[in-house]
């Protein structure tokens, strides 16, 4: 299958030293790709380069085979949406108004949102089952609900590639799981996801493909089973982990705690 989003040999930096170097990465339709990497590895920056918010210093990003720099922001936005970390706003827009903002590029300077725009926003809210939040202030709903509202905005936008920056950060355990379920569900409907995360477990749970980023370079790209390995996670985060198989072929990643008063027990575990 051809790639919907394709980055080739991309480099980027704000001024001096490059933050990203020689990045090649492609997304196929309906794929869930998880980007793993330690703090400061350039994950968020890479997302912004792929979205066209930052222009790459060298290399090229192509959307549906067309170079990103040749596309107007409006044309990019019709295909690709950015779902930031759930944030707090200075102004208490209603959830409906926030979702409606996804329709802004469908409107000309002279026209306000149409009935059709409002319908798109309503459908997006219903699809994520948060229609009951429509008239609540965005500033007063929970972090998990905000994340769902931002996904709804991406759907209202009409985009089918969703670029998500640490979607589960700040969410409680239940909301994390529900959000992952929602992403898997939308992917099965044909949406494409690229998301960053700090949890190797989440990559093992729902990703079709995992990309490892360290110091601005890609150090691994492939099926989660092959990429999220003990060695790779240790090299990426500099902590020791076990990848254990559980029921139905699921695997999960368990850290080995390095406790000074319990070192020998830890040492035995490694030998075993």
């Amino acid at each position, binding site marked *: 299958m051809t790639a919907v989003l394709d980055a080739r040999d991309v480099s980027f930096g704000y001024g001096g030293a490059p933050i990203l170097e020689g990045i090649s990465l492609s997304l196929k339709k309906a794929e869930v790709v998880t980007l793993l990497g330690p703090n400061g590895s350039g994950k968020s920056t890479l997302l912004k380069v792929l979205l066209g918010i930052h222009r790459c210093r060298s290399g090229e990003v192509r959307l549906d085979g067309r170079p990103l720099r040749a596309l107007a922001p409006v044309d990019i*936005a019709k295909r690709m949406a950015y779902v930031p970390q759930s944030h707090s706003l200075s102004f208490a827009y209603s959830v409906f108004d926030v979702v409606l903002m996804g329709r802004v590029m469908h409107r000309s300077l002279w026209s306000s949102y*149409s009935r059709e725009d*409002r319908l798109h926003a309503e459908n997006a809210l219903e699809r994520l089952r948060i229609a009951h939040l429509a008239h609540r202030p965005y500033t007063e709903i929970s972090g998990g609900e905000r994340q769902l509202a931002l996904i709804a905005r991406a759907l209202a936008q009409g985009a089918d590639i969703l670029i998500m920056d640490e979607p589960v950060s700040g969410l409680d355990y239940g909301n994390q799981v529900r959000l992952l379920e929602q992403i898997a569900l939308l992917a099965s409907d044909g949406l494409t996801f690229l998301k960053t995360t700090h949890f190797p477990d989440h990559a093992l749970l729902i990703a079709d493909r995992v990309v490892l980023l360290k110091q601005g370079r890609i150090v691994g790209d492939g099926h989660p089973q092959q990429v999220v390995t003990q060695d790779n996670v240790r090299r990426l985060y500099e902590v020791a982990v076990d990848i254990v198989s559980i029921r139905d072929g699921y695997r999960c990643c368990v850290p080995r705690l390095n406790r000074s008063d319990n070192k020998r027990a830890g040492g035995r575990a490694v030998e075993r």
Partner: protein
Amino acid sequence: MTAWDDSRRPAPSFVSRHRWAWGLSLVLAAASAASLMVGRYAVPPGDILGFFMALYAGGEGMDASRFQELHVLLLDVRLPRIVAAMLIGAALASSGTAFQALFMNPLVSPGLLGVLAGASFGAALAMVFFDHWLAVQVSAFLFGLIAVGLALGIAALYRANSLLILVLGGIISTGLFASLLSLVKFVADPYDQLPAIVMWLMGRLSNVDARTVTVLVVPLLAGMFALGLSAKYLNVLSMGDGEATALGVNVRRIRCVVIFWATLISALTVVMAGRIEWIGLVIPHVARFLVGPNNEILVPFSAVLGALFLLIVDNIARNLFPVEVPVGVVTELIGIPIFLFVLLKTRKEWA
């Protein structure tokens, strides 16, 4: 699910979505008519109606001397002042609203980038060196724009397209022109020029003349219209640069357009009536408290509310006390308690 059922209704028409603004516009029209009657010489409503009918008929149907008298009082004195009060209130309130959304901060006012400080310096400079009213107006306008230009220039030096740097540029520019103003005050003649500068800085509508109002009404309305058109982009911009870009909005262009028009109309308010503070900060808050933060409704609503506010305050300033108090002073005295009240009511929003 009751809250949701509400939005299932057909999309509200323009009138029902803006019913607040329409209702308030009617109040504003009534207030401006009432303002024609009150003053040192009270004119009964019947006379005002009679005068305008006579005016329409070309001077017929009214005693000639009475007609002349009312012509001067209503058309040359009161009407320009009423129109100026409404325009200034609306311009400051709408540019304040636009700036608050643009800078993602509800504590921002139109003077953030230095326009008011620059215009104040420009006016004082011309008062000392030219002593001609037109020169004062032109100089105030030009230095208002120069001050904002300086703020933008400082921001551009950093090559970072960041709001924080822009605010920093505004602080520097404001500080520079405030100190230059002090310098002008220091060299001004303390018996003649200095009191004139101080009075002018308090903000007053008594100097407004019909010609200035006629000339400035077009750019002021154009600026407010432009800010109104930018409203749906302002909503998006208040989500942050990255998100706005990803939503397909040309952030740089919208920001330039909004800063240009907000600066222009703020500078023009100084040209008309000197420095009137607090409206640009307080009215957007009151308006947001009443109709919510959606700029598509908020910007026009603030404009109408600002017009009504300054009109009422000006009526107080010219009627309540035996001598006329500068309107800028009354604006502050009334605006500050209102601001406090609204802050206490809405602080939840900022959590």
